[in-house]
């Protein structure tokens, strides 16, 4: 280390003379310093200036450039650390070596902290240390300066570098921006280009389409001309044919090449329409309508003749005329009076029959108001069917008597619809229905009379039976009295004769009763008193009533009904009457040893009651008339009551009144089965009826 320092000191000394400012008020000390420096063995030369106070020192520093200051801290005008600060203030760069007392090393260290470069303790081998300290201080100052310079340069370089970097960044940014702009421009340009390209394509397509359209249009035009059903001929001013289309070829029956270049032969004048002879498509003579217009052909004025075959149209016109005539004839041939009326009741058309009825010509009636003409009134009829038809758009009818003509008219009107589907007028057909009307009236009268007669008959039957009853009752009583021998004893033969009389009186009574019964049913005066009952009970009780009669006749009478019973809604008195009739009939027509069976079953919504016997049976031809009134056949009845001829008629009617029906099957000598079918009573109906009955009972109870 030492050798290194020495080398450095040597370099210093070779080059420099060291100017020292010694700030020291102690002369001993200053002399010592001067001496030490003067006797320096080092190859450096010191010049020492002395300042004895701080103010003097500051003055010296201001005037002269020193290499180093040796500063005593105890001066007459300053002391301590403050002295260092003050000197530093004057020259911040000047190296300061503080000279301190022997016992004051701390002050030295403090001085260094406050800007001193180094310190020396006075009297402590000052001679050895002084020079070295000075040289070190100088060297340190020099290095410090170097460091500072280097630092400064470094800072400057760093600054420059920073600036350069900044500039670089700016440039990069600018470059980037420029790049982005460029890209944008490129993109814009690309878009423009592709647009232009598309436009070009489109234009191309358009042009192509236009060309195609033009071609198509030309083709179409050609097609139009070629396929035109009208003949087209171009003729020049000289009347020479220039062009002929296929329609024209066939109209004239010549080929185009045969016609072109030839004289047309028909007068051609612009705007004129004439009829020309042609060959029609059938090959026969025809007529064409020719229309000429002026045109151009190959740049020259020319005429175009348009020819239309009107042969058919001419025919059609004739046909229409014929049809119209035919229609008119037909219209006038109808004997009904027909007219057509508009919505203002004005007559627009009439047929001959109508005109004849008014002894006028048809045209004289047209324009007249219908109600004024037909009915002689100032107002439409109150129930005018014409008005009704227009209002409802539907046909209407009315029958009325026309006093001025003395006839009954049946009028029917039907709306006539215009092209908008609105009925603006109607066709009014009046028919003389006097005869029918009279016939109807007669029929009505006859019907009324018939009704009256029927009622009279009912009344008669009813009254007659009333009137018959009392005498019957007397005759019966009288016979009974005699038979009971009240007036006196009778012999057996008399009894037999009287018994015959008695039987027939009884029979007569039954006939009277049946007559009254059937008359009541037929006139609808009989009302059913329906209740819900178990029909099986009714059958059982009726059968048991007839057991004695059956036993008497030797007929086995049996009853076969479901145990659980069948509830049904009916009038028990009437159904009992039915059962009595059927059972007594069967017993009557069954011979000894035979049987009669009454059964009941429910089947498909019906209750079937059958009365079957093994009796004589009924001939097939008699079956259809079986239920008619007063029909008695040759069924050979055994002894007992004779029939009235009304029983089955009453039975049928009573069953029908219940909504049922009766059927019969029979085989001669084998037996007969009567089957009565009555509609079942559903639970719902039964409930309703029960509720009704309950209500009735309640009301009756409440009333009482």
């Amino acid at each position, binding site marked *: 280390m030492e050798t290194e320092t020495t080398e450095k000191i040597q370099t210093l000394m070779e080059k420099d003379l060291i100017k020292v400012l010694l700030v020291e008020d102690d002369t001993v000390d200053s002399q010592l310093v001067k001496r030490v420096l003067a006797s320096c063995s080092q190859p450096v030369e010191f010049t020492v200036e002395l300042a004895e106070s701080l103010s003097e020192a500051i003055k010296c520093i201001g005037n002269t450039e020193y290499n180093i200051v040796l500063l005593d801290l105890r001066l007459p005008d300053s002391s301590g650390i403050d002295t260092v600060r003050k000197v530093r203030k004057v020259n911040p760069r000047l190296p300061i070596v503080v000279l301190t007392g022997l016992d004051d090393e701390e002050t030295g260290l403090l001085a260094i902290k406050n800007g001193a470069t180094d310190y020396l303790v006075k009297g402590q081998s000052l001679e050895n240390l002084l020079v070295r300290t000075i040289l070190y201080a100088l060297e340190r100052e020099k290095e410090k300066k170097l460091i500072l310079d280097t630092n400064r340069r470094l800072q400057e370089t760093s600054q420059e570098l920073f600036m350069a970097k900044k500039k670089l960044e700016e440039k990069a940014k600018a470059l980037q921006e420029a790049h982005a702009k460029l890209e944008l421009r490129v993109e814009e340009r690309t878009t423009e280009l592709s647009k232009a390209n598309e436009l070009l394509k489109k234009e191309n397509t358009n042009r192509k389409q236009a060309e195609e359209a033009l071609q198509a249009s030309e083709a179409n035009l050609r097609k139009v001309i070629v396929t035109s059903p009208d003949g087209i001929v171009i003729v020049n001013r000289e009347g020479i044919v220039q062009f002929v289309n296929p329609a024209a070829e066939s109209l004239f029956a010549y080929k185009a090449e045969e016609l072109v270049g030839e004289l047309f032969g028909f007068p051609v004048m612009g705007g004129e329409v004439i009829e020309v002879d042609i060959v029609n498509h059938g090959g026969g003579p025809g007529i064409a309508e020719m229309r000429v217009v002026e045109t151009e052909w190959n740049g020259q004025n020319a005429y175009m003749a348009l020819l239309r075959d009107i042969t058919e149209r001419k025919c059609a016109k004739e046909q229409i005329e014929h049809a119209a005539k035919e229609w008119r004839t037909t219209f006038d041939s109808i004997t009904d009076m027909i007219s057509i009326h508009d919505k203002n009741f004005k007559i627009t058309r009439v047929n001959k029959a109508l005109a004849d009825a008014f002894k006028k010509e048809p045209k004289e009636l047209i324009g007249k108001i219908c109600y004024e003409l037909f009915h002689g009134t100032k107002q439409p009829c109150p129930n005018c069917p014409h008005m009704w038809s227009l209002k409802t758009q539907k046909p209407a009818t009315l029958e009325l008597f026309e006093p001025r003509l003395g006839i009954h008219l049946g009028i029917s009107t039907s709306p006539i619809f215009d092209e908008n589907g609105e009925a603006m007028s109607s066709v009014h057909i009046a028919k003389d229905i006097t005869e029918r009307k009279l016939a109807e009236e007669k029929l009505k009268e006859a019907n009324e009379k018939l009704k009256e007669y029927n009622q009279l008959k009912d009344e008669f039957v009813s009254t007659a039976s009333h*009137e018959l009853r*009392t005498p019957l*009752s007397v005759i019966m*009583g009288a016979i009974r*009295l005699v038979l009971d021998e009240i007036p006196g004893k009778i012999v057996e033969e008399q009894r037999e004769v009287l018994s015959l009389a008695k039987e027939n009186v009884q029979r007569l009574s*039954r006939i009277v*009763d049946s007559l*009254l019964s059937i008359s009541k049913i037929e006139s609808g005066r009989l009302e059913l008193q329906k209740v819900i009952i178990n029909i099986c009970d009714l059958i059982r009780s009726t059968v048991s009533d007839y057991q004695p009669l059956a036993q008497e006749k030797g007929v086995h009478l049996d009853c076969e009904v479901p145990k659980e019973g069948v509830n049904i809604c009916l009038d028990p*008195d009437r159904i009992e009457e039915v059962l009595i009739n059927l059972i007594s009939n069967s017993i009557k027509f069954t011979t000894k040893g035979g049987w009669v069976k009454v059964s009941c079953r429910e089947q498909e919504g019906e209750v079937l009651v059958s009365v079957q016997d093994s009796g004589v049976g009924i001939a097939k031809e008699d079956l259809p008339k079986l239920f008619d009134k007063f029909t008695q056949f040759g069924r050979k009845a055994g002894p007992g009551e004779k029939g009235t001829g009304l029983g089955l008629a009453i039975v049928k009617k009573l069953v029908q009144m219940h909504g049922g029906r009766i059927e019969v099957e029979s085989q001669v000598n084998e037996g007969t089965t009567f089957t009565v079918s009555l509609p079942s009573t559903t639970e719902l109906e039964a409930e309703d009826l029960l509720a009704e009955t309950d209500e009735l009972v309640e009301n009756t109870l409440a009333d009482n």
Partner: protein
Amino acid sequence: MNKKKILIVDDEKDVLFILEKELPTRGYSVIAADNGKDAMVLAKTKHPDLIILDLEMPDTYGGDVTRMLSEDPETKDLPVMFLTGMFPKEEEGKGGRMVAGHVLFAKPYDIEELVTAIRDLLQAEKTLVE
């Protein structure tokens, strides 16, 4: 035991003739009237046990007689039976038909049924009185 007395009212004398003969053979005594007025008088003076009425008579309708009887305190409890030719036998039912509380019999009557009905009616009356 006293015979029950029955008043028969009918404008047909023949009917009366027969019943006057028939009913006594069945143990009843009979009085008769051929019109409504006489019937009222007899009903009040002779105190019959039962009355058999014809419904249709020239001077009075049977129903009116019933009304008059029921309105009179002396006769209001007298049982009434109708004997009429006004409805068919079929409608009568067994042993007569009850109409407004009265037994209805159709002509021509069966004497046995009539007598049964008379007996029943009198029996019912007796029960009612007791």
